[in-house]
């Protein structure tokens, strides 16, 4: 077939792409921040003394890890009007992505907490550290080191997952590919361009993680 790859055909759509890319970035950043907060809450629940709260935390993680994000997005998107709340598609996407990602964040943070043995809390206490000081100087640096690599992976996962927002009518990069492709019949070019946007975003996270890791953890120590 006479299909020739010519990027020039989609020049007129590049302005919209800039908007779409900004929206993908905004969506990802908001969801990452929110899911960190929710995830921290769930991680604390999972280490609670109360059995009920622990079970609640576990149930949350299991539900989020075993249900497709798309279904969660639809539930939130369609639940709004039923409960008399008008959610914009952007808000629905942020909530869905955050709730889903929080299930994974909780596990990452929990692993970080487990890595610090209880003896350290006691030792810090015996040294006369306050709770805040213990957290700031003893616990946090160790937790951060453990969660550093998986946190980077999760950030990339959220960026990729933000593509599903196109299913609830958010005009981000995947939606741009789909609409531009079907109006210009240039699916090959739009695919390549969209892929490059995601590749660049993901590789930026990767490089940033490497650079920051080298800065924070001095060389020779394991933090990929």
């Amino acid at each position, binding site marked *: *077939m006479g*299909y020739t790859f010519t990027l020039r055909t989609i020049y007129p759509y590049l302005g919209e792409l800039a908007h779409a890319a900004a929206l993908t970035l905004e969506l990802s950043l908001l969801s990452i921040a929110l899911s960190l907060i929710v995830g921290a809450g769930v991680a604390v629940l999972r280490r609670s003394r109360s059995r009920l709260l622990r079970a609640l935390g576990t149930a949350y993680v*299991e*539900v989020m*890890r*075993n*249900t*497709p*994000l*798309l*279904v*969660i997005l*639809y*539930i939130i998107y*369609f*639940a709004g009007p*039923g409960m008399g709340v008008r959610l914009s598609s952007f808000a629905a996407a942020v909530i869905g992505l955050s709730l*889903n*990602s929080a299930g*994974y964040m909780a596990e990452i943070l929990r692993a970080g907490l487990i890595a610090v043995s209880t003896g350290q809390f006691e030792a810090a206490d015996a040294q006369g550290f306050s709770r805040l000081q213990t957290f700031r100087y003893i616990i946090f640096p160790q937790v951060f080191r453990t969660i550093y690599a998986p946190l980077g*992976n999760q950030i*990339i*996962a*959220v960026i*990729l*997952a*933000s*593509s*599903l927002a*196109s*299913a609830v009518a958010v005009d981000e990069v*995947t939606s741009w*590919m*789909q609409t531009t*492709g*079907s109006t210009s*019949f240039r*699916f*090959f070019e739009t*695919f390549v361009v*969209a*892929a490059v946007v*995601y*590749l660049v975003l*993901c*590789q930026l996270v990767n490089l940033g993680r490497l650079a920051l890791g080298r800065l924070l953890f001095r060389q020779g120590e394991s933090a990929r």
Partner: protein
Amino acid sequence: MNPDWLAYAPLMLRAAGLTLWLSWLAMLIGAVGGTGVALLRTSRFRLLRLAALVYTEFFRSVPILIVMFFCYFGVPLVFGFDVSSFAAATIALALHASSTMSEVVRAGIESVGRGQWEAAQAAGMDRVQVMRYIVGPQAIRVVLPPSVGVFITTLKESSLASIIGFIELTKTGLLVRESTDGGLVPLLALAALYFIINYAISLVGGRLERRFHIGSRSDLVGAMG
């Protein structure tokens, strides 16, 4: 008026069967392809190693949905033959699964010590024999448990097939929702069905992990689905 939800149960269960079939097929192709890519990554030739690395990194850094769109809308335009939504979904899912599986298989191969390769070669085995009799059986221990995680991810990602119009579980739920009064019940039922299927699979995975005494279920990059 409440619709008779139970009347839709057989429809949903059959759709769940389709979702399982789609995911299983994609996983199978992904596992075979991933093993191939992993072997390329341990190849003696630099060019082959590089090609395998680019393949893995590409499919891990690109959302599966745009790959699916390309397979479904792009391939007919570029190559001039029609692709069914089922085929497009299977291929896109398999490409993604193969990139994660290649990492899993590579970790499996690397878990077998270098000395064993050398010993087997000293005993006169060729590369294929070493893989078949020495490395393979040991690597499978390391490969199997995380593969369960990849399968669950693939199963969740298979819901994206609904976006290109393949009528699997998610699409069926949406259609039921439209044909009734647009309530949340069909969507919640969807979530419950996916949860039951995936949770059951993850329990099997947990047993495998315990049997083989290795780390917990690892969701790899891009595993959110």
